């Protein structure tokens, strides 16, 4: 009590003595820490519990089986595959098949979706009605049924390969899929490829020059004829000069199937068509919403500047609409990728189908399911990252 002031002074400057739990910062840290422990603990429990259960049930576990010989065949593979390959390699084949369907599906669905979406806003009554009917039909049918429709309803009723429908030029259609001639390249063909590459490079340079000229003088130069001449004409001329260094192998009729040429299997066609057509219905609506989101004043302003409807759409409306379109479009791309696992119903060897075979041959359900989930998560996250990057780029267009 001798120096009451000296003792009181530090107390005043110190923080008020409050409960630890009433400090929002510390409380936040505590809550986060507890949550982290719970989450880590939960997953640790899952892992150890699973391992224990598998051990107790005497079920083989671990990822060692990926190195074992697969022993089964896969009908469609982009990379060479034989039954001597490992389970791991077979999964890779399935993964690539999934990617092929997903990428092609995204491209085709975007194309159809863009057309139909614009069609719904067309001033032409018939186009508008057809587009509306398309969207309302395919948006409201489960994708699995659309797949079955194409596979069992359309492709399966095509004739046997013996009586295949000939489409001319060696193209034919049967219930074994579409057969086309296969180009066989001779060594001299590299000249044509080189001409093609040069043609593209020169077209890029030419269009850059045309743009600079337009900036400088205001005069427009038509790029398309030059581009056609360079990209198509140049390789064609080289092809003839080099003495046609390519021949075609036509599919030959054998006892059971057509052999030779290129074959596109019905499972692939059905899955591809179904996924594209189904997803395109959603994309069409997204495109329509995006275009409607651009104020009509923009279109009127463009028209008043003398732009025709085509360039107005291409140069004014779509760039602005893209900002609205891209985020929901990403979801549709992800949906299409994930829906590709419905392939299992019609025997297209995608990741789920091949994984299912391995699951049953090895009995290692937990491992296969983990691989499935990890791969789909990986594909989806990669797609999201790309689309987010693209979205940021498009967003910068706004001024």
């Amino acid at each position, binding site marked *: 009590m001798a120096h009451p002031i000296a003792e009181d002074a530090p107390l005043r400057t110190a923080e008020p003595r409050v409960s630890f739990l009433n400090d929002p910062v510390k409380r936040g840290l505590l809550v986060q820490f507890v949550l982290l422990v719970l989450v880590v603990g939960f997953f640790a429990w899952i892992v150890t519990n699973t391992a224990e259960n*598998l051990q*107790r*049930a005497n*079920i083989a576990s671990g990822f060692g089986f990926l190195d074992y010989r697969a022993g089964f065949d*896969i009908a469609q593979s982009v990379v060479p595959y034989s039954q001597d390959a490992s389970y791991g390699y077979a999964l890779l084949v399935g993964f690539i098949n999934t990617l092929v369907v997903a990428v092609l599906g995204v491209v085709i669905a975007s194309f159809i979706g863009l057309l139909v979406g614009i069609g719904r806003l067309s001033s032409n009554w018939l186009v508008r009605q057809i587009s509306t009917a398309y969207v309302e039909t395919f948006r409201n049918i489960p994708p699995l049924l659309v797949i079955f429709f194409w596979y069992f309803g359309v492709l399966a009723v095509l004739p046997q390969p013996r009586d295949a429908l000939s489409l001319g030029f060696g193209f034919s259609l049967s219930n074994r899929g579409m057969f086309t001639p296969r180009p066989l390249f001779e060594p001299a063909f590299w000249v044509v490829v080189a001409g093609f590459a040069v043609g593209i490079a020169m077209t890029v340079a030419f269009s850059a020059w045309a743009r600079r000229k337009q900036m400088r003088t205001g005069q427009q130069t038509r790029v398309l004829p030059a581009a056609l001449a360079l990209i198509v004409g140049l390789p064609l001329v080289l092809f003839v000069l080099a003495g046609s260094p390519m021949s075609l192998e036509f599919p030959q009729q054998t006892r059971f199937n057509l052999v030779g040429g290129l074959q596109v299997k019905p499972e692939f066609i059905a899955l591809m068509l179904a996924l594209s057509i189904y997803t395109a219905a959603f994309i069409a609506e997204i495109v329509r919403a995006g275009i409607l989101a651009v104020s009509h004043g923009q279109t009127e302003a463009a028209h008043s500047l003398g732009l025709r409807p085509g360039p107005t759409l291409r140069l004014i409306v779509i760039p602005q609409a893209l900002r609205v379109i891209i985020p929901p479009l990403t979801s549709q791309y992800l949906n299409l990728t994930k829906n590709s696992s419905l392939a299992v119903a019609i025997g297209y060897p995608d990741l789920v189908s091949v994984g299912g075979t391995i699951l*049953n041959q090895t009995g290692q359900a937990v491992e*296969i399911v983990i691989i499935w989930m990890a791969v789909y998560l990986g594909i989806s996250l990669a797609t999201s990252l790309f689309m987010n990057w693209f979205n940021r780029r498009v967003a910068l267009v706004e001024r």
Partner: protein
Amino acid sequence: MFGQLGKQGWLIMKATSLPLALGLVLGLGAAAHAATLDDVKAKGFLQCGANTGLPGFAAPDNAGNWTGFDVDYCRAVAAAIFGDPSKVKFTPLSAKERFTALQSGEVDVLIRNTTWTMSRDTSLGLKFAGVNYYDGQGFMVRKDLGVSSALELSGASICVQTGTTTELNLADYFRANKMDYNPVVFEKLDETNSAYDSGRCDALTTDASGLYATRLTMKSPGDHMVLPEIISKEPLGPVVRQGDDQWFNVVKWTHFALLDAEELGVTQANVEEMKTSDNPEIKRLLGVDGTFGQAIGLSNDWVVNIIKGVGNYGEIFERNIGTSSPLEIERGLNALWTDGGIQYGMPVR
């Protein structure tokens, strides 16, 4: 059809292997390991994993009742336990789902045209309780193809169900004979069959018994023929989980009892009279002498219950798949050892 299935069965029908694997992850299966027989008795019914619809072996009839060779085996086990062959619920399982369903405890026993192989016995945590049907893999083709041997199938498209021994045998056979083929692989039996029926494939391959059964479901069964080659051994039998010897014995001895009953001439019709037989073997089998039933946790008249419920092995065979059934399959290897086959019931002694 749903009326026949319990809630679990319905869930399984909707399920792929994902939720089943989840069962393993979360340890739901752990409880099922201890004493399956006690669990089944407490539950009041047997949960039997069956095929999704293979005529003659396991398929619901017009009235929604499951019938077939494998189904009767399920009923036999139920009769042995409860004295009532109807105390069984069926879970239809695809080839891909079947082992996980058994491992995770969703079903008590799997009787679903399942081939006994070494890896399935050793690395899946399962045990085969016997061979109720000796089968082999064959091919079915359209008659108008003009094929008379499997060796002429080079270049053919072949429909096959995924995740089966069939798929592996097929690959081995074509490689061994230096032939090419295009596999067309489906997950479900009906998808495989309808793809073949629609002409997507030139040939369908599965166990020979399955081919005869499938032929009945084709649009015009007469247009198809089974080729003579049998390319593999396919011993089909009931499967249980490892680590429960009592339950293993119940299933195994139900199978032997069915065989012994046929061998001793005990049938569904005469089982009551046979109880008064002087033959000591029959007396032991039917529980008149000894306590063999109690020794595996059942009542002593367990075999009487089985035979009353479903008949002996020969009766089950004839009724469902034999020459008097639509499948018209000969006994062949599945005749008793006394008739030139290899079905052999271990003695009850």
